[in-house]
């Protein structure tokens, strides 16, 4: 039975979408403050993947998707900036539902991460959350694996330094399983500027 190229393309796209949609959505959720924003990023990423399907590498297509999602996220942030400025002018509250999955966003690890430069934050997120190696990060960021290795080393050191600067009391509170998020909330809340860059 002969199938049209479009039909075969849809089947292959379906396989790509089914295999990687969770990873792309998680990538977006880790870097946004609201479910709707993360869904926007994931949907736009796969829309671009559909349009540019023939350009997606056969090996490790997830890295290509991450690279696209990264650019979509950057565009979204620019748009959000404009939206916030407009909302301030019109005094409209942002009604987007916030992501609550990461209760530890008020913890020391996040506080330390927030103190780093955006580039350091992103490379550490790719290491810790997307669990990418130097080759994978290089593909996502469009730099060489050697450059990645150097940047990861430096970012890791700066992150360790930022963690060490947190007071021991707060650190113990974070490690104490009996502590609630409410105990920590407010301690670092003023410093927290969001998971994104």
């Amino acid at each position: 039975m002969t199938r049209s190229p479009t039909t075969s393309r849809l089947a292959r796209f379906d396989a790509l979408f089914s295999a990687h949609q969770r990873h792309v959505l998680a990538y977006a959720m880790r870097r946004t403050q609201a479910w709707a924003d993360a869904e926007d990023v994931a949907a736009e990423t796969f829309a671009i993947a559909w349009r540019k399907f023939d350009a997606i590498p056969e090996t490790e297509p997830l890295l290509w998707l991450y690279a696209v999602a990264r650019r979509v996220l950057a565009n979204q942030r620019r748009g959000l900036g404009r939206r916030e400025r407009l909302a301030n002018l019109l005094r409209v509250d942002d009604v987007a539902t916030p992501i609550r999955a990461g209760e530890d966003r008020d913890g020391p690890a996040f506080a330390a991460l927030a103190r780093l430069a955006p580039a350091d934050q992103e490379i550490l997120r790719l290491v810790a959350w997307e669990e990418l190696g130097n080759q994978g990060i290089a593909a996502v960021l469009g730099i060489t694996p050697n450059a990645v290795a150097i940047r990861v080393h430096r970012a890791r050191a700066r992150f360790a330094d930022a963690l060490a600067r947190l007071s021991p009391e707060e650190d113990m509170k974070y490690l104490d399983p009996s502590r609630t998020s409410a105990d920590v909330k407010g301690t670092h809340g003023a410093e927290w500027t969001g998971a994104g860059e």
Partner: protein
Amino acid sequence: MSIPAGPDPIDRLRAADPIHADHVPDASLARVTARIKEHIMADEQHEPTVRQPRGPLAWVGGLALVGVIALAFAIALGNGLGAGAQTSPPIAANPTPSEAPAPSDDPAAGGGMASCIVYDPAILTTMDVVFDGSVTAIDGDRVTFKVNDGWKGADGSVTLTAPPAAIALTGPLPEFKVGSRYLVTAAGSTINSCGYTLDYDAATAAKWAAAFGS
């Protein structure tokens, strides 16, 4: 600047991962899936190959194409897929036996893949993993197969991850059971749906083997 001795600080960040891919809400996945379906339908509507000379017939042709695509998606939706915030069992991704169509010798003609809008054995060669295997163990969404015939990327024993059923774009998965035999494809370590993983039958297995020249 040097890293202090002791535990890797990255472990602290790793432990603070806001959301693991396995815990992404089904409702969010369903909304993204619905938007992608909408996007593809709109895109297909504007395919150059369906452009007709301006006139009443052009509208008929265009609407017919949209109707066909919409019907195909609707058929898939009728098999438990789609935009709703459905929660699927971890492995049993298929319609119940009473709802499932009877197997056929020709997947492309219907049978187990009647709900799929696309099926083309020629695509098998582009998959990462293709094999005939029997399930030896199921642990959550992880399914281990003993490979009976490995055509690509599989040999001996293989453990793969079953995707959630309610969010695939075009079709279901079979219900995996220990001891049962399947024809399986996967993208990386994730099992593909939509007729690219199905209950074993000899005729289809022969066609899959032929796709690899064996």
